[in-house]
């Protein structure tokens, strides 16, 4: 995997609580441009929360996030933080694509409507240009014939591919994938993974929370194992799956790979 060393996403000392629950207990992580990092771990380990903190859908209490070298979401001032304006936060989110477990397509808009919504209303692209780009992206995810369909007319796998196209339409600097195949029927998982594999090959910077161990093994440049709000171990997939060092990683891999 050719990843240039420039970091796209950098996280330092990230902490997050939900009430009394300490969900992220000091996360440090850097994802280089073009890198595909897969995060695995038991449910409740904080994987999804980490991803949601990166585009500020959850607000971490402590720590720094840099995207493409810029400190985002807040500045540090003497003794505390000063939050960025909502507009500045939205502008950062516009540069980072996110795909969700439950697709979250907009049901009142057609497939094309879903894809051009943010380019037209956030980036203020001309509608025609956005539409042309949408058709290219639909072709890329194998759904050129569904441009006029509505989300409810599509299978889960098709909806998720539209969701990927919708995120790509913003020309993001990086893509976050939050268990994007977990809600799919088993026979529909492969079509989504194929699209993601293709995206990785095109050099997209990707941070992928997943339970698909084969995908992580084949596509990831690096695999991270999280447990109880901490990164327990990280390594290239061959070593992570072949010879994990930590006993917790071994236990986890044993349970998921046995199935």
């Amino acid at each position, binding site marked *: 995997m050719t990843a240039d060393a420039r970091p796209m996403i950098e996280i330092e000392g990230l902490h997050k609580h939900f009430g009394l629950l300490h969900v992220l207990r000091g996360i440090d992580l850097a994802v280089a441009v073009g890198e595909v990092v897969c995060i695995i771990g038991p449910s409740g380990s904080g994987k999804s929360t980490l991803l949601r903190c990166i585009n500020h859908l959850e607000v971490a209490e402590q720590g720094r996030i840099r995207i493409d070298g810029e400190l985002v979401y807040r500045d540090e001032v003497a003794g505390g933080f000063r939050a960025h304006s909502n507009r500045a936060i939205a502008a950062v*989110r516009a540069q980072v694509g996110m795909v969700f477990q439950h697709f979250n397509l907009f049901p009142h808009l057609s497939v094309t409507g879903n894809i051009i919504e943010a380019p037209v209303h956030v980036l203020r692209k001309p509608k025609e240009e956005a539409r042309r780009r949408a058709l290219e992206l639909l072709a890329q995810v194998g759904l050129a014939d569904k441009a006029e369909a509505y989300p409810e007319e599509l299978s889960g796998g098709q909806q998720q591919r539209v969701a990927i196209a919708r995120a790509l339409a913003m020309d993001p600097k990086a893509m976050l994938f939050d268990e994007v195949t977990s809600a799919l029927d088993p026979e529909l998982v492969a079509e989504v993974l194929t699209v993601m594999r293709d995206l990785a090959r095109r050099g997209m910077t990707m941070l992928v929370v997943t339970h698909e161990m084969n995908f992580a093994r084949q596509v990831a440049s690096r695999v991270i194992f999280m447990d109880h709000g901490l990164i327990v171990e990280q390594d290239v997939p061959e070593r992570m799956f072949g010879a994990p060092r930590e006993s917790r990683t071994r236990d986890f891999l044993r349970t998921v790979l046995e199935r």
Partner: protein
Amino acid sequence: MFELFNPQVAVQNVGPLLAGLLITVELTFVVITLSLVCALFVALAGMSRLAPLRWVVKAYIEVIRGTPLLLQLIYVYYVLPEIGIRLDAFTAGVLALTLNYSAYISEVYRSGIQAIARGQHDAAAALGMTHALAMRRIILPQAIRIVVPALGNYFIGLFKDTALCSAVSIQELVFTAQVHAALNFQYFTLYTVVAVMYFAVSFPAARLVNYLERVTKRGYRRRRA
């Protein structure tokens, strides 16, 4: 010969009664239009991040819900002039009904907005939309679809509630009937005609609401040729 229903009286009075019905319908449409808009602002203010704004909205809704509509009408028409606000009957009626219906409809809007899944907000935010843009383009279009049947029922209710405006001398249908009945004592005939007139409007309207309910349940699929 004594008879309850006098067709001749009915025919003689149908003209003035239809004029009253016209006022009733006018009143209904003016109040519908105003309260659809006002209620949206009330609903959004009620979900604001500013706590004092939420409290004001909450208090307004509770006061409206906790007092009779008839009293609200009387209050606007008879009490406001004592503090220097003098309104003609029609304006007072519109104001009181709009205040009342905006409170109830704002609650309908609120439930509609809150029925939209969290994931829709997340997806809009993740695409870089501001809160206002997400509301306008993603949340409200879906919420309005959800609340259409409930709104329809409120408007049929409003059509009938306008009868209370007879108490503040708006010359709508019931008021007109009262005036004429006081002259000719043909209560049975006049009020039966009035009942038929209300029913002739609200029954088809109720069928229309049922139809809209079915259409909105059908999902977002468009029928294509």
